[in-house]
């Protein structure tokens, strides 16, 4: 299964990874090779098989919906690249135009 550069660019956009010309060629080749490698899975007859979602077939344990942590905004602010007034700072999202 070959992976075209266009396929890869679409996938990269979904994965939020910027592509430059060097990495696009190499990664298109590598991802294509991996997809070829896993292709053999599709030949297995699994019509009567239930997917295995958890290795012990257990359901995710849920905790009671109660507050059990103190407000830790200052700790989160300390590790954020840009943070002010209890807000994460990002480039402008909405452009109101002229």
């Amino acid at each position: 299964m070959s992976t075209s550069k266009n396929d890869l660019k679409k996938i990269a956009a979904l994965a939020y990874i910027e592509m430059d010309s060097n990495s696009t060629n190499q990664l298109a080749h590598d991802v294509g090779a991996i997809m070829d490698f896993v292709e053999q899975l599709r030949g297995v007859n699994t019509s009567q098989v239930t997917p295995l979602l958890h290795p012990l077939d257990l359901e995710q344990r849920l905790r009671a919906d109660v507050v059990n942590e103190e407000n830790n905004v200052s700790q989160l602010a300390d590790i954020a690249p840009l943070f002010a007034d209890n807000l994460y700072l990002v480039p402008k999202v909405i452009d109101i135009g002229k």
Partner: protein
Amino acid sequence: MHTLSLREMTQALQKQQLSSTELTQHFLNRISNAKTLNAFITIDEQQAMAAAADADKILIRGDGKPLTGIPMAHKDIFCTQTMPTTCGSKMLADFHSPYQATIVKRLAEQGAVLLGKTNMDEFAMGSANESSYFGHVKNPWALNRTPGGSSGGSASAIAANLIPYATGSDTGGSIRQPAAFCGISGLKPTYGLASRFGMIAFASSLDQAGPMAHSAEDLAYILQAMAGFDENDSTSINKPLPDYPAALNKPLTPLRIGLPTCFFQPQVDSNIQQAITDAVKVFEQAGAEIVELNLSMQPLWVPCYYVIACAEASSNLSRFDGIRFGYRTPHADSLIELITRSRHEAFGIEVKRRILTGTYVLSSGYFDDYYVQAQKVRRMIQNELQTALAQVDVIIGPTTPTCAFKLGEKITNPTERYLADVFTVAANLAGLPALSIPVGFSAGLPIGMQLMGAHFSESRLLNLAHYYQQCTDWHQTRPNDERGFT
């Protein structure tokens, strides 16, 4: 001092024949003389000496527990509040976690003396420790060879006697494969036995934390301190823990050993095949019965693993966005550019390869054909292994098809690299416990043997490995310091 077992160290410390301060200084000296191995990302001597002084006070009071005062290191995938947590990535190169992993907390409460954080493949993705942002790690048995990965720093440091034990994580063999390549012992516990809270996620249905050390006896003491229920990890199993050290000397027989024929194929190094055959004879001589197993699903283990691991990695690593924590590009004019460029600049090639592959198999049109199909194949693989384990107590085979390969070897072909995990991924897919112990050498390089058992059979696996290590001394054979790494 550095050749003592953990039990011997604990005894010497509790009898005050040795102080934690002396022991810690000794290992710090060895680390500072072995920088060429690049086994550590962080070392904090001041913090280690302060922890040793605290441990000495506890020991003098007579309140020491097993492991109190013994130096150790955590793989840099475990969040620590007192040291950076990088996960081997530029993305987290300056990350200081606001909380600590449960395993870090448990070992600290036991009085463990943390010396530093060990090097690893970036986000635990790799089998050679060559994808670390902090440079590759060297194997102390041959400095031009890989220590294996992703817990390569932990394995290299233990093999070179720079630390007596360390933590690791194992998603597809990341504890057992480096243990095999470096001639040490390593255990991947049953899925859910050891808490993953604070262990940076790679593939959540496969990841498991575990101990790495010289012997099965050492592993039993560490597992006892690490394992157990944690309400902060929703996959943690709430059941009483057995006494692992007490089970080490239980009777060996009756014992049925399963030997899969697929583990003895021509592509497996003939010296490795011979070493496993010789090791099995040790059990046979003690009365074990050998059962030949046919595991017909084995050719699908690695393809199945890579679909699931990459899919889960692409989801888990979506949290790294350059906004909340971690690396942020200085060159972005829009929100999308900020996220995509931060990820492009901070993730290495292997991480991108796996995120893209994972995104591919989860994308519309491919989800059922690849991801759901892999989950169904996973069920078939687990069923086959459980059927086998209903007939035998343990499945034995080589941990790896070759010994440690040269640094840079096979680097151009990712799928060839993935086959280094050919015997280890099954335990992760099925959630089974498995350990690797050293059983000999091929051309001067260590050989590892894998023992895989039913869910929660850690006591039995450690019991068998301990019996073997009472009959042999491979686990006590250490690389020669004169080779130049100290």
